[in-house]
């Protein structure tokens, strides 16, 4: 059988089992499939995997496609396995504050479900209305509040993973503390779907904050030393902000109509504590700083807008302009250098860069809009600077044709052989998300 015959065979095989199957088509972000499959059950996913393993077919794994532009050197695999129909809450034990959901559930759907119980998953990923929980874990997405609450690796307590042969492997469990065996949960978070398909995720939950406020400190003079001094004072004080995120002037302009560097300091606690902390923060902030306080609902409106800034599958840009997004990791206070450099590069490269980074956790995001060549040259310049700071740059969104011209993940680490070894053990035929990850894994 040639590939086409195989896929016809697959289509009839799956259709018989009531699985939605469509002919695939190429997408400007790549990571497509010749056939698209939409299982509704774990058994359905398992069937697809088993078929692919038996016939050595490759698979692109997708939720709702918000991260389709993230990595991947193959325009199309044989099968696009979409989990968007595989959704819902499996188990929510309110008293134990644990929740198990299917991987295709969007972050917002989960949050809406939990609202009634005043509980939440302590994550703040981008594009929450579209991003599925499986995709958020696979790409290890996180937002500014990671400073206080950590990331997926800190909230996930158990997974059901489908291995490439379709078998189910459970990792972790349903309790919040667990050291039985290797901490295999960690292996799959951030693995870009190259090791297995996440089927179910169990989280430990946190209570919803009783009160929250967001303080936006604007620095009209743009003096990085002043910003640094202010941030250091906050960190060295008794304050317990949930985030301390520096926004570049272009991003501040988009979100708050102020063309200044803004330090976004957020507090979540009982009301008396939040007010007390804002008062302390005002005492700490340097002169010439403009302070805007957004209380509960206003803060939520700001954040909702903020989490939409990252390009998703629909934002591959128009003909003239390309959009790219970078994730950058540096030592915490080097964030200042990265954001400043991003701002300066705009004029040099004739591009727009909207940037933000956490002074408490060292992760930055840059969203670059402009012509293809200008973007590629800017990425190279930024990478050179960040490597000088001993950090890394990952290109987390770029159209497929341009992505081929750049190393999405940067150079292989010296311990690459271990990553390669893990991949070979779990997916020896390399059928899952081929070439999507570090070093071509």
């Amino acid at each position, binding site marked *: 059988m040639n590939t086409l015959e195989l896929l016809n065979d697959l289509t009839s095989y799956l259709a018989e089992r009531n699985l939605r199957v469509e002919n695939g088509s190429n997408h400007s972000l790549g990571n497509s499939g010749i056939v698209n499959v939409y299982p509704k059950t774990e058994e359905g996913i398992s069937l697809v995997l088993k078929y692919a393993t038996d016939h050595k077919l490759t698979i692109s794994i997708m939720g709702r496609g918000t991260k389709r532009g993230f990595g991947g050197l193959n325009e199309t695999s044989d099968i696009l396995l979409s989990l968007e129909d595989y959704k819902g809450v499996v188990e929510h034990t309110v008293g134990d504050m644990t929740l198990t959901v299917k991987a295709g559930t969007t972050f917002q759907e989960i949050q809406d479900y939990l609202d009634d119980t005043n509980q939440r998953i302590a994550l703040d990923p981008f594009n929450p209305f579209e991003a599925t929980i499986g995709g958020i874990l696979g790409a290890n997405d996180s937002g500014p509040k990671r400073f206080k609450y950590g990331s997926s690796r800190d909230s996930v307590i158990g997974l059901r993973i489908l291995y490439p042969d379709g078998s189910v492997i459970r990792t972790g469990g349903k309790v919040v503390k667990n050291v039985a065996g290797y901490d295999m949960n960690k292996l799959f978070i*951030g693995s870009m779907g190259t090791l297995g398909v996440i089927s179910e995720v169990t989280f430990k939950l946190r209570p919803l904050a009783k009160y929250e406020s967001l303080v936006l400190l604007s620095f009209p003079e743009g003096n990085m030393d002043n910003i640094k001094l202010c941030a250091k004072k906050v960190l060295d004080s008794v*304050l317990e902000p949930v985030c301390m995120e520096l926004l570049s002037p272009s991003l501040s302009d988009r979100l708050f109509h102020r063309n200044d560097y803004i330090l976004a300091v957020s507090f979540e606690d009982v009301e008396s504590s939040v007010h007390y902390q804002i008062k302390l923060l005002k005492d700490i902030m340097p002169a010439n700083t403009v302070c805007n306080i957004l209380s509960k609902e206003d803060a939520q409106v700001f954040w909702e807008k903020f989490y939409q800034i990252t390009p998703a599958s629909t934002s591959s840009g128009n003909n003239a302009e390309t959009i790219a997004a970078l994730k950058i990791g540096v030592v915490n206070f080097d964030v200042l250098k990265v954001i400043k450099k991003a701002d300066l590069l705009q004029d040099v490269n004739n591009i727009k860069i909207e940037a933000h980074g956490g002074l408490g956790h060292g992760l930055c995001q840059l969203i670059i809009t402009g012509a293809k060549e200008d973007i590629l040259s800017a990425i190279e310049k930024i990478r050179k600077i960040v490597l000088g700071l001993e950090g890394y740059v990952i290109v987390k969104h770029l159209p497929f044709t341009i992505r081929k011209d750049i190393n999405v993940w940067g150079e292989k680490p010296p311990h690459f052989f271990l990553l390669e070894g893990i991949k070979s*053990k779990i997916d020896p035929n390399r059928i899952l998300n081929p070439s999507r990850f570090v070093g071509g894994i």
Partner: protein
Amino acid sequence: MKVKIKSNDGHIQKLAEIVGGTRSILYNKEDLIAYDCDGFTLHNHLPKAVVFPNDTNEVAQIVKYCSENKLPFLARGAGTGLSGGAIPINGEVIISLVRMKRLISVDFENRRAVVEPGFVNLKLTNAISDKGYYYAPDPSSQYCCTIGGNVAENAGGAHCLKYGVTTNHILGLEVVLPNGDIIEIGKNGILDEPGYDLLGLLTGSEGTLGIVTKITVRILKNPEGKQTVLAYFDKVEEGSRAVSEIISSGIVPAALEMMDKVAIEGVEAAAFPVGHPKDIEAVLLIEVDGIAAGIDEQINQILEVCRKCHVRKVRAAKDEHEREQWWANRKTGFGAMGAISPDYLVQDGVIPRSTLPEVLERIKQISEESGLRIANIFHAGDGNLHPLVLFDARKQGEIEKALEAGSACLKVCADVGGTITGEHGVGIEKREEMRFVFNDEEIIAQTNIREVFNPHNLLNAGKLFPTPGRCVEIKKEIKDALLKS
């Protein structure tokens, strides 16, 4: 360097040369006896030798030598582990990391510190407390256990309910792999390094994947205020309900601990009695910390919840001295069992919080059936239960009975949806109990990962996983053959 060694064993001679002299190696039987077990004392085995390297390079050379000469080896810190992870069951060369105990650097600005593996947990907090910082993971043995050992076991502690366990505080590791290669992961402590999360995988791998020689940890700012509440309950069910209600009321306590009647008898007979009544079924210790302005509100809410749950007596500590006394009483709880029993076995299961009354009832039955008393010390907030099986090793058959009772307690934990260890690890103690929570395929999935790092299984072999049954081996052979084809 040629070293004079009174041993005919060529390997001992070579190892002595690597570590630079007779003061850095033990090989006589009388010296080795101290290393024949760790905090899990029911199994003993003599090591081939104990070497004390001074730096990463020496560790790498020892490992390389052992690997090339097919000598089994393992790493050991302070030897406080409770599941036997550092017991040389194959006559290993023990690589003791106690001389690698430097605090290499502290970077307050970026909230991190770099330590060598032999650095003692509590010393880190002591070294940075004058600047208002601390290291969060606080296992009860923190005054003597090493951070390297904490990484191996993914150690927890009373305060991990709010702040997480060791894995949540590790930013970077330097590791000597079983072939002697040195790698660095989580370079400079920068988060989310591209690639699979090896930091997360290595933390808690019980020294079976590599030997950690340098650790970058997160440090935290001391909370502005903290307060502890003590509550006595006549019924375990009511104490247990209070635990659930405190947490679901939206408070995240820094610690939430419970002791049952037998445990109370122990701590009150030991070195730090505080006057807990002997006729109550449960005592709760609840600590909240954070911004001082918000603490009173939370304490009042906790007092209210306890009263609603028919508490006999509840109150907040009147001063720091009293708070510390309450915690000293609780933190020395394991050792306190020595005051009421010649021997005791510490168990370490985890259960969904809400199942506590049911689980305690079943543990009571196990106690009655075995004829051994069982005390329960419970990190109630995160469901981590420590049944302490009291026995007398001098009595014929009691060790076996205690082990059986301990295992039965873990089965109960697994049956209610929990797990067999929350912070002490599997080691050799709970290898077979791994089957309570994982099936054969899931265990193979884990040993497959071990093979990537430790292909010849010379590093800490025989730990963490059950001996595979014959059927499992056959299944694996078939699977491997299929994969190759």
